């Protein structure tokens, strides 16, 4: 669970490092008296949903390694979620994965997926550091 108490400018570091883009500021702008926990809510939703999707992709790579359509569908969902919160680096790695799917390159998918997981883990750590 993330507890969000810091003002927007303190996220500059995370933005400058490229992990988040300006889309994240939209989350902050949507937080107000009527939705006081909006940022926390959406970030929590994101990590819950993205963890599920990462697990699905992991499983699919093992059980259905040639089903690139299935893999692409999962990654499309993950990329969409990442885009919504401004997770720029993660979004870029998702795009790479989809390109490998398009070329039906399993080795490329496997390598790319490791990067997706890494960016996911790093982002989670960085947001945890800022929120708590």
């Amino acid at each position: 669970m993330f507890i969000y108490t810091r003002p927007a400018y303190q996220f500059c570091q995370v933005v400058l490092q490229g992990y988040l883009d300006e889309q994240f500021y939209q989350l902050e702008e949507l937080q107000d008296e009527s939705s006081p926990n909006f940022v926390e809510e959406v970030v929590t939703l994101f990590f819950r949903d993205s963890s599920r999707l990462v697990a699905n992709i992991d499983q699919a790579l093992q059980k259905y390694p040639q089903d690139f359509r299935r893999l692409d569908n999962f990654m499309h969902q993950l990329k969409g979620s990442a885009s919504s919160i401004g997770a720029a680096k993660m979004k870029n790695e998702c795009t790479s994965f989809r390109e490998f799917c398009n070329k039906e390159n399993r080795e490329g998918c496997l390598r790319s997926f490791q990067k997706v997981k890494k960016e996911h883990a790093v982002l989670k750590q960085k947001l945890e550091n800022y929120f708590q």
Partner: protein
Amino acid sequence: MEEGEGSNGGVFEGGLEVRVLVVDDSPVERRMVEGLLKKSGAMFQVIAVDSGKRAMEVLGLTDDKAEHPTVDHQKVDIILTDYSMPEMTGYDLLKTVKEQSCRKPIPVIIMSSENEPQRISRCRAIGAEDFILKPLQTNDVLRLRSYARPTELSPRTGTKRKMALELMAENSGSDRRPRLAGLAVS
């Protein structure tokens, strides 16, 4: 299904609330769109569902209406649906809504993360009012109101609230946001 609380039951100055049915299988994107709609002023009441099938239930378009009591579809002013969803896509939902024989079918706006001309044409060809690129921005949400059916907007009574139009997220590029030459529904 998540039912919005109608922007705290307020009525914005000079008008009526627009009841928006948001359809998206992503919980993150659903919540973001809902947040955008509510932040744009007390003009939108949001019903958010996670699938085309659930949307059909809300709209009263399922075969078994007895088992699934539904909201009268006339109370939904706009449908804002993701294009890519499992089982029933946004395109399928759009097609079904537009095939209804009622005099004034509900306006349907498609959301997609993919800027594909073929996809846009396809949706336009069967009556989509607009096509918006994800992630949505405040400007996208504000123009939704123009698609609502003016004769059937849901009046709400309650405490008046000043419409909050101050929030203007920076639009990162209008060329990213293809628009159909849609018509405001008469």
